């Protein structure tokens, strides 16, 4: 048990850094945006990432998993954040792969996990409905009808939902909104009758989907795990995703902060580098302090995810809350400290700002996770 990376994880991180620097630097995202890419990621790059083993990183060993755990994958996510690389890693691997590995039937696992590990299938999790994340509030209905399941309702902010081969839909099969009990998971083909997918263009040049299910009919094989009892597996997988998003945010934050500190050293006004102004120095130092604190929280959250430890949920909330808030603060400061040029599209800072906001909202912001942390601590 350690907060530090082991040698294998370190190697994975270093190779990710090298790969991304050459194959998917920030300019790649800019190009994706400027050409109005409809997918929101580059399939060729994704294939190369698969060759590096990223989608297999946390798969069970029998499906070719690398065994580097979430600490290893988190290190990759941090590097992904540093270059704003567009990948379906979170939706396909952490969320969908995680749910199938955690709760899927043998046949579901056998069919999908190898494809996921090979980077040959894309999947997405359809969970959020309201503007703000809250899994217990799911209202999309699932019910039995004539030997089948029926799903009816609407999902929003389905990351990569517009390119997914399959959706995992969180539905309410029992109890009222607000309850943990009564949630079920379904594997849904986007081509099925009654499924309507609408691509939405997000501010970070990536896409999400709005998904409408109109009395969609599914057979029992579509159910993942036991009906009504999906919450625990879902919550556990969401916590891993929250930790991975926090890791990506840490990458976004450290890169933007590093660029800002460099700018403070270079930019001369009033005949001195602006980084010599004490007010800016103290603000930069405060950001550094928060980054170091976040790094510790994140390492602990990833470690706990790997260990399946009791405190994993609280640590995931701790990491995601701090990452969300620090992303907001650091990028706002980065823009302000860059001055006029900071609000122009020529600089990359704006791209980091935008990505940080999407990640801030993904699977709960600071307010959500402080609330959750308080509940977990029993108050």
């Amino acid at each position: 048990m350690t907060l530090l990376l082991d040698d294998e994880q370190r190697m994975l991180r270093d190779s990710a850094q090298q790969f991304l620097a050459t194959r998917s630097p920030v300019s790649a995202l800019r190009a994706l945006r400027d050409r109005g890419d409809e997918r929101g990621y580059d399939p060729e790059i994704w294939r190369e990432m698969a060759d590096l083993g990223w989608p297999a990183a946390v798969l069970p060993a029998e499906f070719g998993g690398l065994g580097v755990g979430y600490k290893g994958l988190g290190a990759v996510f941090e590097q992904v954040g540093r270059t704003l690389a567009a990948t379906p890693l979170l939706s396909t691997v952490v969320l969908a792969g995680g749910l199938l590995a955690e709760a899927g039937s043998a046949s579901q696992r056998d069919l999908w996990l190898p494809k996921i590990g090979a980077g040959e299938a894309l999947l997405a999790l359809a969970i959020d409905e309201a503007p703000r994340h809250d899994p217990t509030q799911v209202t999309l209905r699932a019910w039995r009808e004539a030997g089948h399941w029926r799903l009816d309702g609407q999902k929003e902010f389905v990351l990569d939902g517009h390119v997914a081969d399959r959706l995992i839909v969180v539905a309410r099969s029992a109890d009222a909104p607000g309850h943990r009990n009564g949630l079920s998971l379904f594997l849904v083909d986007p081509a099925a009758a009654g499924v309507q997918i609408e691509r939405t263009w997000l501010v970070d040049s990536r896409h999400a989907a709005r998904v409408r299910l109109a009395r969609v009919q599914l057979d029992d094989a579509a159910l993942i795990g036991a009906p009504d009892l999906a919450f625990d597996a879902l919550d556990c997988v969401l916590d891993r995703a929250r930790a991975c998003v926090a890791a990506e945010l840490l990458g976004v934050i450290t890169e933007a902060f590093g660029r800002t500190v460099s700018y403070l050293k270079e930019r001369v006004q009033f005949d001195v580098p602006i980084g010599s102004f004490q007010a800016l120095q103290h603000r930069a130092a405060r950001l550094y302090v928060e980054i170091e604190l976040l790094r510790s929280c994140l390492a602990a959250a990833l470690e706990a995810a790997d260990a399946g430890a009791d405190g994993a949920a609280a640590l995931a909330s701790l990491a995601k809350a701090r990452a969300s808030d620090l992303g907001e603060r650091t990028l706002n400061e980065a823009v302000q400290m860059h001055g006029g040029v900071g609000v122009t599209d020529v600089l990359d800072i704006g791209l980091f700002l935008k990505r940080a906001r999407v990640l801030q909202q993904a699977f709960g912001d600071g307010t959500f996770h402080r609330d959750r942390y308080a509940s977990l601590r029993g108050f």
Partner: protein
Amino acid sequence: MSGIDEFRAEVRRWLEANCPASMRTPITNEEMVWGGSRVSFQNEDQRIWFERMRDRGWFAPDWPSACGGGGLGPREQRVLEQEMLALGCRLPQYNLGIWMLGPVLLEFGTAAQKSEHLPRMARGEVRWCQGFSEPNAGSDLASLRTAAVRDGDDFVVSGQKTWTSDGDKADWMYALVRTDPQAKKQQGISFIMVDMKSPGVTVRPIELISGTSGFCEVFFDGVRVPAKNVVGDINQGWGVAKRLLEHERAAMSKFTEGGAPSLDALVVAAPYLAGGGPVWRDRMAAALMDQHAFSLTARRLQEMALAREDVAGPGSIMKLVQSEQESAKYELLQQLMGHRGLSMEGEGFTADERAVCRLWLYTKSYTIAGGASEIQLNLIARRVLGLPA
């Protein structure tokens, strides 16, 4: 009836008779008419109102008639403003030239400069832009580098300006250029007027993080400008510019009157507050209370000014507070909206949601432009609190 009361009655009669009804409604950004050679009107009422005010000389009511102005004294000018406000008359045109350059030309300009430029300005025939900031001269404007080298009767100008509002739509620019590279920073700068049609001038719009903007970069590549276009003495342009910037606040107030788009935070927030819970409600209340405090301070400032009290202290906080509050407002709304605040374009989001996302990004510039927050804080600390440099 005293002379001023008579004047007031006459102004009101004239406005009532001449200002079309549609020109007495609140104006939106899109409906502003900008003077200049490329002036355009969206409807006949705009044109009528523009021409009638122009012909009355009331684009520049306080300028001498000889310069094309209305020849009004300060009291009369105030009456005109009050009556326009009372009737809700829109400004017939927007024009940086009249509001900022004009007063400076009246003070520093040569007779030839006045007669060449003021009447055309006053008729709304020329659109002016401002060329002060440069890539390496932002907060520290005096470090500007655009060079003007004397060559016979001309200066040859080379360099780059940035953050020029509507540089791509302007006919002329007033600019600061360095005419003596040896002199100390504030010295060696001249104030010069440049025809934007001159060979060697290139204008490129600036793309912001919130999308396209009215700001431009302007490049000068050996642009010949007649030496007679220098306003004030050569190498004394810093003083001219300082004087001009004193008119900036007054000019800016005409814009806020006009209504830069600012959403009503509570109206926009209402649907999201319902599902947001008490913590977001607390934040929303704090934001509204900030706005309330600001508007009360604006009122107090006005009352102090009327009572001839010293407003240097409270006046020094206004730019800082307004820009930070406006920016903070969209921060709050954008986050309150959750993932629905994450798109500037396309389907799947409401118009309010897209507007909030765009304005959240756009207002990031408020705390940077026109004297960054850090500069405002420096000024408060040094000038108001008297803390040592």
